[in-house]
């Protein structure tokens, strides 16, 4: 089973996500790289995707916002069955554990996406150029 293919599929979805603050993609800012995506097989033709991203600024709310964008875009765009884990890569942030916990709490993610202001920002970030 070729995980590299799956990893590239995942990376292709996230690379073009726009940074919430700068006019660049996450790829351009090195927030995500090909090697930050890991895919592991799960039973039943499903895959576990683990992403470790590096926010450019040590700002808690920005990191959780990027995490939210990653969650939303992957949930919407990945064609194969998956479980997702998103982390701030170690050493890039002072409150890593707090951010990781929030990003991976699906109830918190769902509620955040019902906040019109947050939703608007996320939609702008995950929008494909030809949308």
């Amino acid at each position: 089973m070729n995980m590299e293919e799956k990893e590239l599929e995942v990376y292709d979805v996230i690379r073009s996500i726009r940074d919430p603050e700068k006019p660049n993609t996450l790829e351009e800012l090195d927030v995500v790289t090909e090697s930050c995506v890991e895919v592991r097989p799960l039973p039943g033709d499903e895959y576990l995707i683990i992403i470790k991203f590096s926010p450019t600024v040590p700002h808690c709310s920005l990191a959780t916002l990027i995490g939210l964008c990653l969650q939303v875009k992957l949930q919407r765009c990945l064609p194969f069955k998956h479980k997702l884990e998103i982390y701030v890569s170690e050493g890039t942030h002072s409150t890593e554990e707090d951010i990781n916990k929030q990003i991976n709490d699906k109830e918190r993610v769902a509620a955040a996406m019902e906040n019109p202001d947050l939703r608007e920002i996320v939609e702008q970030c995950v929008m494909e150029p030809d949308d």
Partner: protein
Amino acid sequence: MKDALVLVERFTAHPDSRCWHVAWNPTATLMASCGGDRAIRIWGKEGDSWKCLSVLQDGHQRTVRRVAWSPCGTYLASASFDATTCIWKKKNDDFECLTTLEGHENEVKCVTWAPSGNLLATCSRDKSVWVWEVDEEDEYECVTVINSHTQDVKLVVWHPTLELLASASYDNNICVYKEEDDDWECKATLEGHTSTVWSLTFDPSGQRMASCSDDRTVKIWKRFDGAYMTWKCVCTLSGFHERSVYDIAWCRLTGALVTACGDDGVRVFKEDSTADPEQPVFSLAAHVSKAHSQDVNCVAWNPKEAGVLATCSDNGEIAIWKYQDDHE
């Protein structure tokens, strides 16, 4: 593991949305479900299958996270991410919104009726637990706001027989509250889980509680009544769940424990009757690895029919199961 969990029926409850919660009414003739589509649905049996009797669409502006039946079965409470709790009254097959309880600063995560029917508890991401009193004129009044947790409170549940309330939180702890001088106070804080505690359930006697967590374990806590009430963790079930355990339910009729997991599975655990009561042993009695095609959010034992279970999932479905005990 010789027992089995057999699928009885599966249906879409909330199209294109998550189904967050499903609850049997006290007589088990109806079920209420709620979801990300902001709707509450009432289900009734028509012959052998479940049919949607009513859709309550306009009660909330955001996700409805939890629904709870009053002990008499006439009222339904719904908790929403819109920061309100609605109280609905049953009128034939339909429900009419009686009142909306406001006060929480943000998402209400849970609502639950006390066995007496006179009290209601709610909890929220605002870190608080509210206790409400309802009088004979259907008037609701908040009697206490408790701030014992340091983070988002995920669930509140009443003790089956005593006036005790318990809450589960994103702060990894469980709090147990008792009424003292007209005020509710946290009497015990249960530490042990290493991540968010998603749900709690009391055993039929009320002597023990089971909790489930994002740390992928289930813990069994036993109550010790001395000069002070304390709870000790007497058993931890680890290595069974691959992802977050979102819900747990202790069957009042059979004593079996069931869990809902983010790995799409449903698991039933049975207590070993020969074990030392101070050190209970639970073993996995039945496991459906793909109970749904996505996360299982809720498990609810049918209160009248032993072994019947309802589950619901991120895929918007409700499923009904029959747990067949090999020893029957």
